Every structure is written in C-alpha cells, then in structure tokens.
C-alpha cells in the first residue's frame, strides 16, 4: 500500500479536511491529529484492504498503541506497517 492510499482513506473519513495532508503529516499529537473515531474507521478500511490482499491486518498490537512508536504516526508509517504485515503473511504462507 502506498502512503497516498492512506491519505485517500483519511480524506474519505475526516469530516474536516486538514489544509495539508502529506505522507509525513503527524496524525497523532500534532496539528492534523485525528480523533479516536476516525482512527477506528481508518483501521476498518485498512483491515478490509488487507482482506482483499489475502491477509489480516492487526491493529491491536502493543506497537500500534505506543504513542512514541505508534504505527499511526503518519500516513507513511501506516503504509509501512501495512506492507510489513502483508510481506510477513506472504512469507509465512
């Protein structure tokens, strides 16, 4: 998944569009922070996209919850985590 796809998901979810949303925009704790409801909706979209790609996206890990190293820090970090889980799933199958 490309970070731009994550940004597309966010645009679909967010009622108030941030002025700028880039691959490195801070999603947690920054000016473009998303609320918890939007975060859950994003997770559901990632999960559905994962199913379409033949694996299960885990968004309940301790890493996901970490404020410092959260996979939800930026669209890029989300994309990286998604691709990492997809690759692990492919290797183990």
């Amino acid at each position: 998944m490309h970070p731009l796809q994550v940004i597309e998901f966010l645009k679909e979810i967010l009622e108030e569009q941030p002025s700028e949303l880039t691959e490195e925009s801070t999603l947690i704790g920054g000016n473009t922070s998303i609320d918890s409801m939007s975060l859950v909706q994003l997770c559901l979209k990632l999960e559905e996209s994962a199913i379409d790609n033949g694996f299960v996206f885990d968004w309940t890990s301790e890493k996901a919850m970490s404020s410092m190293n959260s996979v939800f820090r930026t669209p890029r970090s989300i994309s990286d985590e998604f691709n990492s889980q997809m690759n692990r799933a492919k290797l183990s199958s």
Partner: protein
Amino acid sequence: MIMQTIIVTGATSGIGLEIKQYLRTSGYKVISISRRELDEPNHFSCDISCFNSVKDVYTQLLKSRERVYGLINCAGIASMNLALTTPDSVTQKIIAVNLVGTIFSSQIFAPLLIRNGGGRIINFSTIAVHIGLAGESVYVASKSGVEGFSRSFANEVSKFGITVNCIAPGPIKTNLLKGITNQQIKNIVDRQIIKRIMSPSDVSQLVSLLLSASSENLTGQVLNLGGV
C-alpha cells in the same frame, strides 16, 4: 425482511443456550461460540478468555463478510465460595472467563457491528453485585468489572450506533446454581422486588427488548431482572 445476525458466546449451556434457541426461533441467524466442539452450522469452538482464540473467530467472520447486528456475551462460570477459601486458580479462572472474556469478545467483535452501521451488545452481570452476596465475592468482583466495562464501552462505541447494556438476573434455573441450597436461593429472591425465581424465558424476553429498535436510546445500563 433481512435476517439479522447475532453472536452468542457461551451458547451451549445455561442462559446462552436458551438465548440461542430463542433467537433462532425468533428469526435471527445465530453465530454460537463456546469451548465445546459442536457439529452444527455457524458454531465456533473458542476459549473466550484467550485473545487469539477470539481473534481467530473474528478473522473467519471478517473473511466471510458477515454483517453482525448483535453480540450477547453469556459465557461465564461461577464458583460459590468464601473469598477466604477460594483457591487462586479458581479466582484467576473466574476473572479470566467472566471479565476478561467479556472484554476480549466486546473489543474484538465490535468492529463487525461498526461495519454493520450499528448494533447491540448485551453483557451479563448478576443481582449479587447489587446485594453484595456473601460467598460470591470473586464472582461478584468479576461481574462488577463487567458492569463498569459496559458503562465505559457504551461511551466508546455510541458514536458508531452501538448500544451496550447489562442484564443482571437473580437466580435462574441453570447449571450455575449447582451447589446453592434452596434456602440460599430464597434469600436472594426475597431481596428482589418481584419475589419469584426468574425463568430463562424471562431473560430471553429482555434480550429481545434490548435487540429491538425500541431500545435504541438505552445504553450503559444495568437491568436487574426482578428489580432491586
């Protein structure tokens, strides 16, 4: 009319079994979950106190694109003992199944209800929480936790159109009453406003009410069957 799907945990015995049968005869599709293996459609064998075991069921439902309207957490165990004489393994087991199991089930299956556009979660407590029954301290502790979790979780998921409520029955004729004397049951029933032993169908009817559209504004509540 679209058949709504309800997940029922602890669906092979006691109240869970009664509710499963009631819902099926009422036209719901029931996905039953219990530790026991069952050769019947829409049944999953799962240890509700094991996160990965519950997650496996969720993954299968997700892959089958199952739309779920309701989750009824009936899985529970009881051991009537003074806390002073309760073995640590029993304490751990009661908390694991009754409280942690309800939390795991709710947090893992709730996304299915969110995808459905809303729904109902019904958890089970006990009248013993309200009356602080002697000999049930650990059981009461687990169910108090369920009540607290339900109130907070109701706030967390209300934005998604999901209600979360607890049913807290008094004594019901199920296996959970094994080991309780008739006098003990009478002592509890005497503390209810309606002084009779409730039947499984009394519980099922309350479940039916909570699943109905009429209850869409009722959430975060503990409904003591029989009144306290």
